[in-house]
C-alpha cells in the first residue's frame, strides 16, 4: 500500500516536472525541473530495490550531465527569457504527429505483458546487495553489450579529442601556459 503511494507520488512528479521542463521559458528553470525529475526516477529505482542504480542516477545524471547543461546555458548566457513562442517552423504538423504518436502509445498499453521472472527475487538481491548483483550480471551474462557500450563511449571520447585538438596554434593567441586545457577539454 505505502509503496504504491510512493510510486504514485513519484510518477506524478515525474510527469509534471517533465511537462514543466518543456513549458518553462527560462532554460535554467527547465534544467532544474529535470533535476527534480531525476530525483524521482532515483526514488523509483529505490522502490525497486535498485539502490546502486539510484545512486548512479543522481551522481551521473544530476551531478554530471545536468551540470554540463547548465554550463552550456551559462556560456551562451540566456539570461533574458526567450521571447519566441515556437522553436520549430511547422508547429501544426508537429502537433498532429505528436498526437498520433501519443495515441499509438496509448493503443499499445493493453498488449503489455509481464516478462518472465528473472534469477533475482527481492530476497536474493537484499542478501547479495544490489551493487554485487548488478556487477556479477554485467560482467558475466551481459559482457558483450557492456563491452560494446564501452567501445561506443571510447569512440565518443576520441571524437571529442579530435574536435578539441587545435592544429593551427597561433603564437600570438598563446597567452597561457602550454599546460592550459581548452574549454572543451574541461567539459569532457
Amino acid at each position: 500500500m505505502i509503496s504504491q503511494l510512493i510510486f504514485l507520488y513519484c510518477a506524478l512528479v515525474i510527469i509534471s516536472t517533465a511537462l514543466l521542463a518543456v513549458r518553462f521559458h527560462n532554460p535554467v528553470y527547465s534544467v532544474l525541473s529535470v533535476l527534480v525529475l531525476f530525483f524521482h526516477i532515483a526514488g523509483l529505482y529505490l522502490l525497486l530495490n535498485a539502490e546502486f542504480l539510484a545512486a548512479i542516477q543522481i551522481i551521473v545524471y544530476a551531478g554530471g550531465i545536468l551540470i554540463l547543461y547548465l554550463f552550456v546555458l551559462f556560456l551562451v548566457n540566456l539570461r533574458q527569457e526567450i521571447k519566441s513562442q515556437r522553436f520549430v517552423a511547422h508547429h501544426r504538423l508537429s502537433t498532429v504527429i505528436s498526437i498520433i504518436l501519443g495515441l499509438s502509445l496509448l493503443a499499445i498499453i493493453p498488449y503489455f505483458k509481464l516478462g518472465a521472472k528473472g534469477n533475482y527475487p527481492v530476497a536474493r538481491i537484499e542478501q547479495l546487495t544490489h551493487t554485487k548483483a548488478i556487477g556479477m550480471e554485467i560482467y558475466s551474462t551481459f559482457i558483450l553489450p557492456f563491452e560494446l557500450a564501452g567501445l561506443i563511449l571510447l569512440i565518443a571520447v576520441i571524437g571529442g579529442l579530435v574536435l578539441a585538438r587545435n592544429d593551427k596554434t597561433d603564437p600570438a593567441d598563446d597567452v597561457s601556459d602550454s599546460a592550459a586545457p581548452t574549454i572543451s577539454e574541461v567539459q569532457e
Partner: protein
Amino acid sequence: MQILILLLQIAMLLAIVLLHVAYLTYFERKIIGHMQVRMGPMRVGWHGLLQPIADGIKSFFKEDIIPQQADKPLFLAAPIICLVTMLAALAVLPFAEGWVLADINIGLLFIFAMSSLASYGIILAGWASNSKYTFLGGMRSMAQVISYEIPMGLSLVGVMMLSGSLNLSEIVAAQGTSIFSIYLFPQIIGFFVFFIAMLAETNRVPFDLPEAETELVSGYITEYSGMRYALFFMAEYIGMMVIASIGTICFLGGWNGPFAIPFFPPFWFILKVYGFLFVFIWIRATLPRYRYDQLMALGWKLLIPLALLNIFLTGLLKVLVR
C-alpha cells in the same frame, strides 16, 4: 517510538555538528593567527572563546538583502540547497561501531551524490545573484567540481576494491584493528589523489578559486548577507567535516585506535577528523592560491591518470595475492 528515538538522534547529531561548525571557525582563526604570529580573536570571552556565538548572533540579526535584479526564488533556495545536501551526507557516516543513523549499502555513493548536488547551490547562487563576480565564482566552481569529482571517485575505487563493499561501516571493519592494516599503506597513491581532490572539492586553499577574495570579492557569495551568508559558510564547514570523515573512514581505519576508550567509542574517529581539519587549516595558512589553468591541468593531467594507475595496481595486487 523508534521514530522518536531516531528523531532524537538526528537532533543530537545536528546540534553537535553545528556546534563543531561554530568552533571550527574559531579554531581556524586561532590557528592561522598563531601561525602568522598573531593572537587571533581575544576579545569576546576568555581568549575569544565566545567569539563564534557572538558571530552567530550577529549574522542572525543582520539585514537580509536581496538584490533587485536577482532571480528571487533561486537566490533564496541556493543556500538551503547547499546546507541540506551537506547535512544529508552526515546521515551515513559511522562515528563508531553502530553509531550511524542510516547504515545503507551504498554509503560511499550516497556521499558522492550529495557532494555533487551541493555544487548546485553554489552554481545557482552564482547565477541567481545577477552579478559578474558571483557569476564568475559560480562558473569556476562548476568546472572545478566536475573536474575533481572524477579523481575523487576514482581514488576511492581502490578502497572499494580492497574492502569489497560500499558500506562505510564495512569499509572500516575490513581494515581491521591494527594500525598496519589500515588502507593508508596499500592505497598510498589513492590517498594522495584523494587528499588533493578533497581540498578542491571543499573549495579550500589552495583551490579556493570560486571565492578568490583578491579577484572576485567573495565569489558566489558576494551578494549574500546576514544569515544566508552564514548558511553558505556552515555548508562549507560541514562539507569539510564530511570529507575529513570520509578520509578517516576510507584510509585511516575509522573508529579503531591503539586501545578502546570506554564509554566513548567515537574518540579515535573524532581525533582523526580533527587531525584532518587541522591540516586543512594549516594548508590555508601556508599555501598561496593556484592559477585556474594550473588547477585544471593538475586535475586532468596528473590526478586522473594517477587514480587510474592506482586502480590498475590495486587490481593487480588483488589478483596476485589471491
